[in-house]
């Protein structure tokens, strides 16, 4: 029988350890994917994913609204990711668009496939722009959910998504012309 997140969270509140295992199985890929796209480094990704689920277990009793479980889980992952980024942030000079984290993208001549190119460009976005793209395009979260995770307003989420998409499509077009 496949249980919903709400049911599993209720069971976990009552100390059902199998409920934790089920929640982990349901969401480990999404959390891992998000952390990997944000952090790039696989070791850091594993650490962030592990910490996310440990803190999820430790803090589950504090979650009152079980309907908000997924945004809450992503918020925990986001905190782990941001802590890592802040620890490792370099003082790069920002481009005039203020979208890119690096002055020049990764060596695009090495990447033959468009997919690879897009991934490299995504990695070069500033974290706050990369994040909204990941949560929208990979996890199909709504603007409301993304706003809840990032702590921003919905209008900020809309604006950031638009700017990130525009920057990526423009850079892709420059590469191919």
């Amino acid at each position, binding site marked *: 029988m496949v249980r919903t997140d709400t049911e599993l969270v209720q069971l976990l509140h009552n100390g059902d350890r199998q409920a934790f295992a089920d929640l*982990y199985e349901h969401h480990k*890929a999404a959390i891992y994917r998000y952390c990997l796209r944000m952090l790039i480094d696989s070791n850091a990704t*594993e650490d962030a*994913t592990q910490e996310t689920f*440990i803190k999820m277990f430790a803090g589950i009793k504090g979650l009152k609204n079980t309907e908000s479980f997924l945004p809450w889980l992503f918020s925990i992952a986001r905190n782990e990711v941001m802590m890592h980024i802040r620890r490792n942030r370099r003082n790069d000079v920002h481009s005039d668009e203020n979208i890119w984290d690096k002055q020049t993208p990764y060596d695009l001549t090495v990447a033959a496939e468009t997919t690879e190119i*897009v991934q490299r460009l995504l990695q070069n976005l500033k974290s706050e722009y990369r994040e909204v793209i990941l949560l929208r395009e990979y996890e199909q979260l709504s603007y409301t959910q993304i706003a809840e995770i990032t702590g921003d307003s919905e209008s900020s989420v809309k604006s950031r998504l638009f700017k990130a998409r525009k920057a990526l499509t423009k850079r*892709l077009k420059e590469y191919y012309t």
Partner: protein
Amino acid sequence: MNCEQYQEYISQFIDGELPPTVEIDLFVHLGVCEQCRTFLKNVLSLRNTLTLSQQTTVPASLDQRILNQMSSNVKQPTLQNLFWHKGKPQYSFRAIGLAVIFSAVLTSILVSSFWHISYQPQQTIVCLTPLPEVEVTGYVVVAPSPTKGINQ
């Protein structure tokens, strides 16, 4: 309204977040603006490319790490964590109950010790015959002989 605004609408439209009334306005504009049509095409193409690269496998070693960590998070009851939790005293019923029992035992020991010191058994003397009169001369008490009185 300029193309920049319509392109923002395009971004919301592909996410299904554009109000229906604004959608109509956007479609009318797309009918006459090639630049915005190109933007729509590019953003949809970007989405397809991102979707293609979505496959990510969680390493099995990570599964094991997390499940092992959760197993070790289950605390075995020890004397320390009966009363302490994260460096703070845990005022559990166990601690309070033990304190009450200890106090009761100590109190009973103290009370019984005190009772033993102050307890003096009383002796009762029963006389079956009246006591004879005695004569006290200075420090001498003259008791009559059993068969005679004092003045005899």
